[in-house]
Each structure stands twice: as C-alpha cells, then as structure tokens.
C-alpha cells in the first residue's frame, strides 16, 4: 500500500523533525494569510475579530474576511448594533463581502438592517442568510434592496411573518429558501414571484402562505429543477407548477390539503413524500396523479400509512391510487417511531408497482438499521413476500474490493 523504504525514512524524518522544530515553528507561524482567513471564516465574526490582538501581523487580517457571521444571541442584544456598525466601517471596503449570515433574536433598528443589506448588495454578496426570530410590531418586509441584487446566488430569508414582494428581480439566484413568507399578488390574481429568477434551480418553501383573495401561487420558472414544499401550519391554497424542467420534488409533513396541479407534462426523476392525511383526502390522489411519470420515488412510512387508509376505504374514495407506469426505483423509509409492519408495507408497495416496469425496491428501516433490497421484475410476475436482507450500514475498512450483487 505504501511505498518503499517507509520505515527507515520515517524514522529519519522524525529525527529531523525534532532537530528542526524551531524551523517548523517559524514555518507554521507563516501560514499563508489565505489559510488563516479560511480558518477564521468558520468562526463567528466576533471570534474572528479577536485575532487582531495576537500580534501586529494579525492586526488587519480579519479585515479581508469575505464571510461574516453575526448572531445576536452570541454577541448580546445590547452590543449588536454597535458591533455590526463597527465591522462594516472597519473592514476593507475594497474586498467583496461574498457570504453574509445574520441571525437576530431581537428587533434590530430597521434603518441599520437596511444599511447592512445595502452594504452587502454593494459588495457583491452571493450567499445571504437572514433569520429573524422575533416579531416586529409593524407589518414586516425585508429591505427591498435584497430583491434587486444581481450578484445573489443563494438567499435564505426567515421571519415569523412577512410579505414577499410580487416579483423578485434576482437574475443570478440559484437557491432560494423562504420561511413563513406570505406571497402577494397584483389585483387578486395569481401570485407569481419567481418568474424573473432566470437561474433559479432549487426552491424551498417552508410554511409559506398566500395572501387572501389571490387565486393561486403559480411557480412559474422554466429553469427550476428542485422544489421542496413543507407547508404544514398554513391555510390551504392552490399551487400551480409551471415548471417544465422540474425533476425533483420533496414534500414533507403536508397536513394541509393544498391543491397541487400542473399544466406541464412533468416527468419527475425523483420524488420524496413524507405526508400524513385523512384517509378521504383527495389531495393524495391528485398528488400521485401529478407524479404519474415519476421514475424514482421515496416514501416515508407515514405516507405508506396514509395510502393504506386510502386503500382500506377504497370504495368510499372516488379516485383509486394511480398506477406509476414509469417507476424504476422505490424507496420506503421506515422511521424509528413507526409501527407499521413489513407485511403492510409490502402490500402497498405491491399495489403501487402493479403497472410499473422493472423496479428496484429499497426499504430503509431506521428502527432496526436494516436495508432491505428487492428487484422486482414485472415480466416474470414475481413479487416475493419476503424481501432479501442486506446490511444497512457498511462496516469494515476501505479498500479496492467492490461487491457486486446480481439478482433477478
């Protein structure tokens, strides 16, 4: 594994290293500034700034940081405003501020928040996270300068309740993460905030709501590939997916019955569903019909339970579960608190795969840390009751050996 002459050389090297300890020390203290900055970027900004008193060499290093992490719970509410103003006026203004991460546990002066955002936008911010835990008394909106930033590629905004403007003008944005936002629309029409984000690839909506009297939330974006919806504690609304290139959809804890529809012929590659609903909920069936072309699907045991209910009350439910004719891979995650038996899971899986082509089925049992794998070949009309057991987590040492398992 290791080259020739290792033992001897290593011993020699050790001896040399003792002799050269003084030299090594000098070498280490001359760690390139880029490396020191890289270490400092993993720290909260207040910790990084402390390095200025180490020596004269370190005095100004922090001023070149391109990432700032500001957390009012660490800084203390009383010091926060003074600290942030100090950082922005002291740092090297000729250097871009690429990453800005702010977590606020208090109501910061809105003027200051605006100044910080303006500074970030003027300094080519690419990744911006702004999480505010407290409720402002007034009707809250984030400083509008954020929504016209041409350098932003990742944006994460969170506040207990806030309004998103009608349209976002963020041409470079790739990832957008919104929590508790309320979508607004012009003249009680469709809310369509994402259509100008031409580079948007990934969209996460967590407990976002739709303004009253608006017809629907229209996610209209031809570039969008990944959509994550977790809309649990908000009122039901319509969601229209005008997203021809959407390939991955994740739905989590969907207690509400939002109506999902799409004018596009969506052919998903991957879908993750973790949802719990009433047995007679039409949402589920609609959802699965939207997903009729899915190739790779992951379901949680919660979802399987909901399906079982739909199946048990089959006659009372207008639409049966759809057939997934293009499904190639199905994974079922059995959570550690789940009480569903493999037999029941098998029954649902069999039902779902009635019209599917060759499909790989994987069950990940988080309770017993087991992975069950089965490859079902529908041509043979063979679907065994007992799934073959495999090992859930690989143990042992890494090496060149690769185990290839071929089953029918």
């Amino acid at each position, binding site marked *: 594994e*290791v*080259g020739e*002459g*290792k033992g001897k*050389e*290593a011993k*020699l090297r*050790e001896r*040399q290293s003792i002799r050269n300890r003084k030299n*090594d020390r*000098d*070498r*280490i*203290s001359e*760690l390139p500034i880029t*490396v020191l900055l*890289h*270490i400092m970027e*993993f720290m909260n900004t*207040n*910790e990084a*700034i*402390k*390095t*200025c*008193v*180490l*020596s*004269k*060499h*370190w005095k100004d290093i922090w001023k070149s940081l391109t990432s700032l992490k500001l957390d009012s719970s660490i*800084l*203390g509410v009383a010091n926060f405003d*003074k*600290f942030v103003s*100090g*950082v922005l006026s*002291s740092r090297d203004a000729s250097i871009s501020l690429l990453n800005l991460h702010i977590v606020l546990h208090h109501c910061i002066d809105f003027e200051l928040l605006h100044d910080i955002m303006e500074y970030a936008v003027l300094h080519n911010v690419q990744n911006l996270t702004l999480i505010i835990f407290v409720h402002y008394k007034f009707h809250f909106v984030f400083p509008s300068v954020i929504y016209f930033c041409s350098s932003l590629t990742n944006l994460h905004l969170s506040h207990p309740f806030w309004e998103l403007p009608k349209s976002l003008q963020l041409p470079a944005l790739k990832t957008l993460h919104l929590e508790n936002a309320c979508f607004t629309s012009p003249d009680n029409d469709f809310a369509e905030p994402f259509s100008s984000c031409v580079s948007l690839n990934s969209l996460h909506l967590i407990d976002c709501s739709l303004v009253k009297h608006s017809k629907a939330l229209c996610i209209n974006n031809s570039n969008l590939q990944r959509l994550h919806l977790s809309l649990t504690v908000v009122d039901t609304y319509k969601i229209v997916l005008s997203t021809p290139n959407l390939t991955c959809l994740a739905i989590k804890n969907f207690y509400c019955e939002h109506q999902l529809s799409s004018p596009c012929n969506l052919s998903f590659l991957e879908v993750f569903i973790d949802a719990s609903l009433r047995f007679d909920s039409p949402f589920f069936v609609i959802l699965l019909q939207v997903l009729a072309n899915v190739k790779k699907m992951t379901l949680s045991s919660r979802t399987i339970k909901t399906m079982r209910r739909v199946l048990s009350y089959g006659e009372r439910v207008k639409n049966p579960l759809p057939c997934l004719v293009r499904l190639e891979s199905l994974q079922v995650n059995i959570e550690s608190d789940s009480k569903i038996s493999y037999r029941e899971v098998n029954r649902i899986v069999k039902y779902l795969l009635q019209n599917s082509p*060759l499909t790989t089925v994987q069950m990940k049992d988080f309770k017993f840390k087991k*992975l069950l*794998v089965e*490859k079902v*070949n529908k041509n*043979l009309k063979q679907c065994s009751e007992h799934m073959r057991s495999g*090992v*859930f*987590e*690989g*143990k042992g040492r*890494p*090496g*060149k*050996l*690769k*185990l*290839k*398992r*071929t*089953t*029918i």
Partner: protein
Amino acid sequence: MAEETESTKTEPLKTAEEEFKKLEITEEEESELKLETSDHVTFMVEASIAMKFGAVQQYLEVSPAASASATAIPLHNVASRELILILEYYRMHDWVDAGERDLKEFDERFLKDLNYEELKELLLAANYLNVEKLFNFLTKSIANIIRNKDVEFVRTFFGIDNDYTPEEEAAYREENAWAGVKFV
C-alpha cells in the same frame, strides 16, 4: 449501502447456490500514479485519488507524459508522514460503502490521533496539494480548537510572538472596544 445492480437477465432464479455464484467479488484494475514526497519516498497511488490533488492535476497539465511514464511526480512541500495521512483520509472518504456515520467516526478518530503540530503540518500539506475536502475539514477543526480560547492559547497554537508593547496593546484594545474584544 450502495448496492450495485447490474443489467438484468430474464432467466428465472434457480437455486440459492447459483445466486451465490452471481455475487462477484471483483478486484478492479486501477491505474496508479507515482508520487514522490519531499523526503524522497515514492508512493504508488490510485489515479482516482491522486487526481483529487490539485497539485497533481496541475503537474499533469504541464507535463502530461508523467501519468504514463515511470517518472514520479514530485511533491516538494509534502513529507511522507503527511502523505500517508492524506491518503488514509481520502481512501476512507472515497470508499463507496462508507456510511455517513462511518465517516463521522473516522473523522473524529483521525483528528484525535493528531497533535497540534501534526495538525498544522497536515494543513500546510493540504494547502500545498490543493485538496479541498481535507483542507476544509482541517481549517474547520482548527477553528473549533481555537474558538473561545484565551489569547495566550491562540498565540501558542499558531506559534506567534507578541510584538505589541503592553502600551500598544492596551491602546489597540481601547480603539477596538466596539468589537467587545475581551481577553483573559
């Protein structure tokens, strides 16, 4: 975890024995690159791993012949001691069957086995080799080590001689009071 499935044959399954035969264990032939460390030790390294090293990539761009020939690629600022560790790290992280928890356990153990000097040596080597994943892991780990430590600890850690006079230091701290720079 990552179970590889091959394209299927449509023959029905006969016996368990037959199925067992299909469990192929293959020793894959992989091309290797010869690397030479600063203390003149040569290593034969899987190309898939060596090509993750920015310094190796750069070398091969300049002299592409080295990938096929028997000449070793020199790594001027990496000693054998560091290269062994770097290879250990990458072999583990490259291993297809390594689960998330395995990697976490490995990383913890890897870090525990290093003293501060070795850690910094390794960081310099990773910086020179331009190996992103390990570099990020090490810088993050160092950030965790010096976090919330007093100024003397950090000076010792980095081997810094304080060249401020007490008066200068006091004045500087005063000037930066806004930053809440408090040290023990």
